[in-house]
């Protein structure tokens, strides 16, 4: 699971109001190179919840943790190739293979195994 997917997911348990962003607890992370596409990054920027994204990127296990992304981002930064490269790397090249997503409101855990988050609900949660 890439951080781009993490950025889209909210807790889906019925009745939860503040289920976003899910706290990321990554245990195993893989890095896989992806083609750099500046136009895509500019296109997607407005749709990214930056706070959730940076929070997730910084929370990764030490050797993969991304420390060089700014706390706040604004569209003017998209002119910088250096910024775009870091944005690209964190968004598309880091894959959480094992860990969990945790609901900020209820603490409900969604396990991530083989890169696949399990968002299946129990009967009493739908």
């Amino acid at each position, binding site marked *: 699971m890439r951080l781009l997917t993490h*950025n*889209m997911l909210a807790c889906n348990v019925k009745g939860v109001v503040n289920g976003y962003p899910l706290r990321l607890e990554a245990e195993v992370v893989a890095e896989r190179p992806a083609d750099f596409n500046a136009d895509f990054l500019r296109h997607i920027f407005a749709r990214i919840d930056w706070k959730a994204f940076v929070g997730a990127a910084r929370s990764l296990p030490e050797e993969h943790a991304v420390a060089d992304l700014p706390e706040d981002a604004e569209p003017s930064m998209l002119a910088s190739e250096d910024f775009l490269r870091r944005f690209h790397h964190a968004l598309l090249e880091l894959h959480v293979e094992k860990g969990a997503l945790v609901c900020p409101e209820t603490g409900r855990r969604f396990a991530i195994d083989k*890169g696949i988050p399990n968002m299946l609900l129990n009967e009493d949660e739908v």
Partner: protein
Amino acid sequence: MKLKQLEGLLGELQQFSAPKVELEQYPTGPHIASRLIHTAENTFGDITGKIVADFGCGCGTLGIASALLDAEHVVGVDVDPGSLEIASENAEQLEVSIDLVWCDIRNLSWKGKCIDTVVMNPPFGTRRKGVDMEFLSMALQVASGAVYSLHKTSTREHVKKAALQSFNAATAEVLCELRFDVPQMYKFHKKKEVDVAVDLWRFLPQSVSRAC
């Protein structure tokens, strides 16, 4: 990538090893799958460089086809973990990267219109009535660009009405009519193959027409 080449690659994919009847697990064949994704890109520019979601992705055929046509990011969703594992192996085999989420489409909770294009071959609703419309409703909620889907031709009027009136689609258009061979994988199918007339639809969500 040429259509023939795409079709050839999709033909190499592993499909459901033990299909589950209640989930209507039959694959979109390489012929139809390649045409669906190729049309979405070549006629409408809805795949390359886009965020694509594959609803009820099964073994990943439509999502992987999107990745082969250079979708920037693909997310496949299915309720069946066994299929997701096959999808993951299939993606690796063809050296593309797709994300997979194990979830029931009815219970998706995604942030706003985070997807550009949804591609899907939903269950037709022959086992559980209405599941096809649940897929369409959710697809139109998360897509900001377009939704491509296959539905039985016999339900054309119903699909159109539901999309426009209930799910607030801006447009609902049948791109072409196809013959879909549902292979005899289930005991209740008496004939060897059941040939079903299927429409390839393209829906646009409401905000698109306003934005442009």
